[in-house]
């Protein structure tokens, strides 16, 4: 049902053949972070990227954001070639990236300030978005006076305030405690329902990905690549009760199984030791 709708929706992001490598410590060596990644996001779609640490999911998101240039491949955003950040995309950071010397209202208004929106106008817009994320009454609180969950609400409001078509979220709930996290997931559902942004959401929490997404992209390591994509056909609007449905658990288990195989098959410590032993063997012979 969701799927049919999204298949007809215009493309928000098309990334083809994305590869990225960093120079490694060995002379002439390089570490491949991403290889042959194809990724699409349709307008109004909520897509999560899950994968173990080191699978390059954050790097992929940063490439989509235009913060990192891909080594190879092409990136199109809203039908245009993108070679840097754009006004149609806004990012939510894992560590919030709030300015400690600005209060909540000014932090939310920061993106608008950079677009030279006059003070009164941007404060009014910022106040509306603070309300949307449930922080009315905290306009003049400073980040350090607020909990992690509240700080991330500010980070989300700041991204939404510039009214981007696409929201890019890098493990936005990774730095808050488990209870707050469950609560914020429900808030994200509500906020997404009200705003209907196209979202790319990076997480390592399978349940979170299933609860929030229309589609989940599973990534693997060495090199970082897309292993599979799964359409999440849970009906919307979703709620806390969605977590108890049989389909939710079935989808979560399926995704967990493919992740688990990869984590067990390729334990990173073992792999490193094996390659070290192989190199030592090659030197000896």
């Amino acid at each position, binding site marked *: 049902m969701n799927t049919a709708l999204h298949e007809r929706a215009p493309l928000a992001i098309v990334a083809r053949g994305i590869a990225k490598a960093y120079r490694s410590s060995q002379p002439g060596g390089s570490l491949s972070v991403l290889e042959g990644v194809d990724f699409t996001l349709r307008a109004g779609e909520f897509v999560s990227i899950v994968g173990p640490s080191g699978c390059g999911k954050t790097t992929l998101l*940063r490439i989509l*954001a*235009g*913060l990192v240039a891909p080594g190879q491949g092409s990136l199109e955003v809203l039908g245009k070639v993108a070679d*840097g*950040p*754009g*006004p149609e*995309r*806004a*990012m939510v*950071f894992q*560590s919030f*990236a709030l*300015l*400690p*010397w600005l209060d909540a209202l000014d932090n939310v208004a*920061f*993106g608008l*300030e*950079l*677009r030279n929106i006059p003070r009164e106008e941007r404060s009014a817009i910022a106040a509306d978005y603070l309300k949307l994320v449930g922080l009315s009454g905290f306009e003049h609180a*400073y980040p*350090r006076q607020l909990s992690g969950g509240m700080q991330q609400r500010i980070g989300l409001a700041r991204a939404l305030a*510039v009214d981007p078509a696409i929201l890019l979220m890098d493990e936005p709930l990774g730095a808050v405690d488990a209870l707050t996290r469950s609560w914020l997931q429900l808030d994200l559902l509500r906020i997404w329902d009200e705003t209907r942004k196209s979202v790319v959401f990076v997480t390592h929490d399978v349940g979170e990905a299933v609860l929030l997404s229309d589609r989940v992209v599973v990534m693997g390591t060495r090199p970082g690549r897309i292993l599979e994509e799964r359409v999440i056909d849970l009906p919307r609007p979703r709620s806390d009760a969605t977590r108890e449905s049989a389909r939710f658990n079935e989808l979560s288990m399926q995704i967990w199984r493919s992740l688990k195989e990869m984590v067990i098959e390729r334990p990173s410590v073992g792999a490193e030791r094996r390659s070290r032993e192989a190199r030592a063997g090659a030197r000896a012979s």
Partner: protein
Amino acid sequence: MSDSATRGSARRLLAVRAVSLVVVLGAWQYFGDDSRPINFPTAWGTLQALWRQLADGSLATALAKSNQSLLLGYSLALLVALPAGTIAGLVDPIRRAIDPFLTIMIATPLIAVVPVVQAMFGLSLSARVAVVFLFAVGFLLRNTMVGVRQVDATLWEMGRSFRAPPFTMLRKIVFPSALPAIMAGARLGLGQAVSGMVVAELTLVGFGIGSAIEHANTTFRTADLIAIVLVVMAEGILLSWGARLLHRRFERWRIGEHGFA
């Protein structure tokens, strides 16, 4: 309860300081000797000498003359260190290039360089300005550089994701982030600048304070001499106190990183 406890300990501190001041002044008064000007004077005798020099305006004139070099030298140090430190904080190779010189500058007793300054500038005002500049610039430069370099990488990314132009990025993200470190450097630099001013006066040429000290010294008036030194000390304390107030104003939001106090 904790409020009254802090008030109580503040009162105790005040009492301790009052007692120690009374003890020092009492001992000074007791051991001092006003019978001949060349002797170490009593506290009262020194106070009289201070009053005399304040009343006839000689001390004010001397201070005003000396502070020319402080004002010019310190301003020049700010003018050079803020942009240079910012650039060095942003551009890694430049930072690596100037880092050893900075270390040397901060580690050497700069009084050793004064003869070199004299060779270059003679005994002019510019020589004194140069000494003040040299004393102050090291801390200013280092703290600006470190402050700019320590700006949180995700704040840079946040600015870039909103497509902030480079100058806006500096103004709205980098400088506010670096401000506590820069202010701490400005405070340290100011203390050094006062030292530089006095060193220049005493070792190059006595223009204001230096000539007043020289005069008191050659005419064997110890009370006058001590009075002048007390005034210089008072200036140093007042300036550092003012700088601290300014520093605090700028760091209301700060939690305690950038440990350069």
